[in-house]
């Protein structure tokens, strides 16, 4: 039995409006995290002709309890993928594109080279498009992170996902310190690059734990923050502990901005790549 959702968790859907993007992805053999993660904003984003590309296949080597992406043994990276993503970006006239991935612990570089190749392919075909790389922790391997940093993404995004105390339960193959380390290393190595992270509420965290998370993340030099409601993808996933209200999200935003984040997107349906260009536009003049 599905628990009744609060009124603020409503989205609109129109099959015909999303067909064009869905067909483009099929034709170019591309995946989007919108579809693979069953994102509630898919209808809105596809309708606006935008999407978050999920490179390196749709199968993940990790089994996080909040995530809808399938876990298993992935295929080798598709050498055509970088060019195909660039073609899709051009077709959709995207001014800002977010690239994310399934976590690829099976690859020695964690998929970093495929990220770099995709960023380069987009820059070649769409030189005015800004690129955001939403990366896995790449096991914290600095050589892998360097491969991504060398192509200078406009935004480097890596999610801490939840407070320190819930990491083991929610993402057992990742870790709080490791994710903070990724953010800190990237900002230290490329101070001019915007660094971004995000976390979910509704997993059972306390206000005090959220406060500590905000301080810890800010201390890495992170600029941009997203805060959204955790939504259980299927009954087999980690249960929702509570639905935070829109007022709660407004309060989190106020607290985070007061602490010093340059841009905060905080709303029940905010996701790490949702309206990502707005963050970039908002803080453009600060650099």
């Amino acid at each position: 039995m599905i628990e009744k959702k609060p009124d603020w968790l409503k989205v609109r859907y129109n099959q015909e409006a999303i067909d064009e993007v869905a067909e483009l992805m099929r034709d170019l053999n591309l995946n989007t995290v919108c579809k693979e993660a069953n994102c509630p904003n898919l209808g809105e984003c596809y309708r606006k002709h935008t999407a978050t590309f999920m490179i390196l296949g749709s199968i993940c080597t990790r089994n996080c309890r909040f995530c809808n992406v399938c876990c298993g043994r992935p295929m080798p990276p598709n050498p055509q993928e970088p060019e195909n993503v660039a073609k899709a970006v051009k077709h959709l006239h995207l001014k800002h594109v977010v690239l994310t991935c399934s976590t690829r612990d099976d690859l020695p570089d964690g998929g970093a080279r495929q990220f770099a190749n995709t960023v380069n392919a987009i820059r070649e075909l769409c030189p005015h498009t800004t690129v955001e790389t939403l990366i896995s922790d790449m096991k914290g391997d600095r050589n892998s992170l360097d491969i991504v940093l060398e192509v200078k993404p406009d935004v480097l995004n890596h999610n801490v996902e939840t407070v320190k105390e819930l990491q083991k339960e929610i993402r057992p193959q990742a870790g709080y310190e490791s994710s903070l380390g990724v953010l800190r290393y990237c900002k230290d190595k490329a101070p001019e690059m915007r660094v971004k992270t995000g976390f979910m509420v509704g997993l059972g965290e306390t206000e005090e734990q959220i406060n500590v998370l905000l301080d810890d993340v800010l201390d890495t030099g992170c600029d941009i923050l997203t805060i959204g409601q955790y939504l259980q993808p299927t009954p087999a996933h980690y249960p929702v502990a509570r639905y935070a209200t829109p007022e709660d999200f407004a309060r989190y935003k106020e607290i985070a901005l007061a602490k010093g984040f340059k841009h905060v997107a905080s709303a029940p349906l905010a996701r790490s790549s949702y309206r990502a260009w707005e963050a970039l536009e908002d803080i453009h003049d600060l650099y």
Partner: protein
Amino acid sequence: MEKKLLMPKLRPEMEKAVLCAWLKEVGDEIKSGEPVYEIETDKVVTQVESSYDGVLKSKLYEEGDTVDVLLPVALVEEKQEAV
């Protein structure tokens, strides 16, 4: 011409969904892009829009019914363009 509004298949593994509310009554005018009914899925409530301008001719299910994906949920008499 009569058009069918289908239960959408929001993701590959989705087989059915609960129709939780009708947002229009039989006889109501509907514009393309207007939400006609709500379905409850695991993550959110989704308002399904009409792709047609017309009049809601019939509801094929009651609120609370579980409907297989891609089955017709409602019939819309499409507005004919004047020639």
